[in-house]
């Protein structure tokens, strides 16, 4: 067959460059929020195999993972300057586009027979590739395979990037979704665990960046004008014009990045709403229905469960804690038939006492494994009987982020909104114990939420009230929680 460079292949190449560059920059933004990589599920402090930070944490004070966050320049990260929430929106938005474009691309490859340009169909390609490497090392350009557009090394490299590296990056990325992990624990285990997935995803990033560097270098070596002409006109023609168009396109790409980055930093709320609308729709369909089925063995429990967020810095709370939370009451109200109030004793002596050993996923990327004991939330819901119009639960806490958390941007009472459907998930828990002991203060004593298909910030700690509502747009900034309001996170966070 005649391979050539059909128009759709050229369009895909261009679209791919745009998505890839956004994915790389937003990925670095996400990495910067917890700039440490591990080979263990506990993310045990000090056990990282790589770190990208110069910060040193105190020994004599509680520090949390917000203190460890790095602020990177916009040159390497999107949008830069410690904007995990916006970086996530960009990463997820572009990954949806990238995967769709990739599926179309692969489908067209197979429909048109063009897959043969990338997929080897003879073992002979390996000795030929060896010959090609020897020739490159002699500073000579190897000939293309007979009747094909590439030499053996090129064919193997492009094939590996399209059919191995891209799926690898999608799989290791998906394995970092708490909803997927909770529903299919075997999938994460297959990759070596959640932190393995994160580390491998990073190595995949390095592989992509390395490929792009070598690819561009080789385009220059093979003849910049000639090679770029194939991707512009579909054949080797008008090298000077191709060079000009390519350089202009590269400048255009830079301008696109500068404009979107500036816009994102200047208008974070509309970026959150715009990108979030797309991402949320996909998540609602793919991730929200997944329920947690985790049960880690006792030996897997992390010796030191990490924390994000600092306890209420108020005397009323400290006095209550010194009294072992004897005066604590959980208020449950709002759009319910029977508003109720529970003491800790009420909760501890509830007919059902559920214990679960699960993986905790922080939005920042670290994980730990803990055992949590408490009352299944669905039982509280059954007791208070929500009215038909109730659609969300608002968890109000004793934490005031402005007062308690110097590393946080924003102020006010910490709260999170959770769709009512999550209350019916089997492992949604109001936990009062951790690892067989009363819940420690730093983990949310006396009561915290466990929502095993979501990332950690949704699992409100130091809860004092649960309010059933029909709509959350008039609460706070209306985005569905303190983090959503103040640092532009997304509301349903199955990934």
């Amino acid at each position, binding site marked *: 067959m005649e391979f050539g460079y059909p128009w759709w292949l050229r369009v895909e190449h261009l679209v791919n460059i745009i998505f890839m560059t956004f994915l790389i920059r937003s990925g670095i933004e996400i990495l910067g929020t917890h700039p440490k990589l591990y080979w263990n599920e506990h993310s045990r402090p000090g056990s990282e195999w790589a770190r990208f930070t110069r910060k040193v944490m105190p020994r*004599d*004070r*509680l520090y949390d993972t917000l203190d460890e966050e790095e602020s990177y320049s916009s040159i390497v990260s999107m949008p830069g300057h410690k904007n995990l929430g916006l970086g996530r929106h960009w990463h997820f938005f572009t990954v949806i586009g990238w995967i769709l474009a990739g599926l179309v691309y692969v489908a067209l490859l197979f429909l048109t027979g063009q897959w043969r340009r990338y997929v080897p169909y003879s073992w002979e390609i390996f000795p030929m590739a060896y010959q090609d490497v020897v020739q490159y090392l002699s500073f000579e350009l190897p000939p293309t395979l007979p009747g094909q557009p590439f030499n053996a090394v090129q064919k193997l490299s492009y094939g590996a990037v399209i059919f191995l590296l891209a799926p690898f990056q999608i799989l290791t990325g998906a394995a970092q979704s708490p909803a997927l992990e909770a529903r299919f624990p075997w999938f994460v285990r297959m990759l070596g665990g959640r932190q393995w997935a994160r580390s491998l995803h990073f190595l995949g990033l390095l592989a992509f960046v390395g490929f792009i560097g070598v690819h561009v270098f080789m385009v220059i070596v093979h003849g910049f004008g000639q090679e770029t002409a194939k991707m512009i006109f579909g054949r080797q023609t008008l090298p000077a014009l191709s060079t000009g168009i390519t350089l202009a396109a590269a400048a255009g790409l830079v301008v696109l990045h500068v404009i979107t980055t500036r816009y994102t930093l200047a208008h974070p709320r509309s970026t959150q709403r715009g990108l979030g609308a797309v991402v949320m729709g996909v998540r609602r369909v793919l991730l929200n229905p997944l329920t947690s089925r985790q049960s880690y063995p006792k030996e897997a429990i992390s010796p030191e469960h990490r924390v994000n967020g*600092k*306890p209420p*810095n108020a*005397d009323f709370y*400290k*006095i*209550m*804690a*010194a*009294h*072992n*939370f*004897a*005066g604590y009451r959980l208020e449950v109200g709002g759009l319910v038939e029977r508003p109720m109030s529970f003491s*800790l*004793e009420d909760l*501890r002596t509830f007919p059902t006492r559920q214990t679960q050993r699960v993986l905790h996923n922080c939005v920042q990327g670290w994980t730990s494994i803990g055992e949590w004991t408490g009352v299944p939330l669905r039982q509280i819901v059954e007791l208070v009987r929500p009215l038909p119009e109730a659609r969300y639960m608002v968890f109000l806490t004793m934490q005031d982020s402005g007062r308690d958390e*110097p590393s946080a941007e924003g102020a006010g009472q910490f709260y999170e909104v959770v769709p009512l459907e999550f209350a019916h998930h089997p492992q949604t828990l109001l936990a009062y114990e951790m690892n067989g*002991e*009363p*819940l*420690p*203060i*730093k983990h949310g*004593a006396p009561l915290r939420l466990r929502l095993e298909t979501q990332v950690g910030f949704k699992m409100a700690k130091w809860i004092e009230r649960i309010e059933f509502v029909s709509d959350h747009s008039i609460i706070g900034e209306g985005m569905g929680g303190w983090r959503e309001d103040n640092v532009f996170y997304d509301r349903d966070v199955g990934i």
Partner: protein
Amino acid sequence: MGGVIYGDNRILSGEEKRRVLLRVRERGFACPACGSEGFEVGEALPLGFLWFGEEPDAYMVALTCRNPNCPSPRTGIRLEGSGFLLGEDE
């Protein structure tokens, strides 16, 4: 509360509780709810590690007002550990 004691709290010995009451009297601390000066001493919560604004040796010691008619008997006093703790079992 069925005697559940949180791991964050430190259980005080009889002697340590006596020392706390001494400090309470020295400071002239009275129940914020009813003004009574008689207290039962409970556990002590170390504050220095968990809260950034606190002195490293600060504790919140649980005090329960002895006045049976007190509307809010659970209170507490912030003390330096060196002022009431004995020995080192930390």
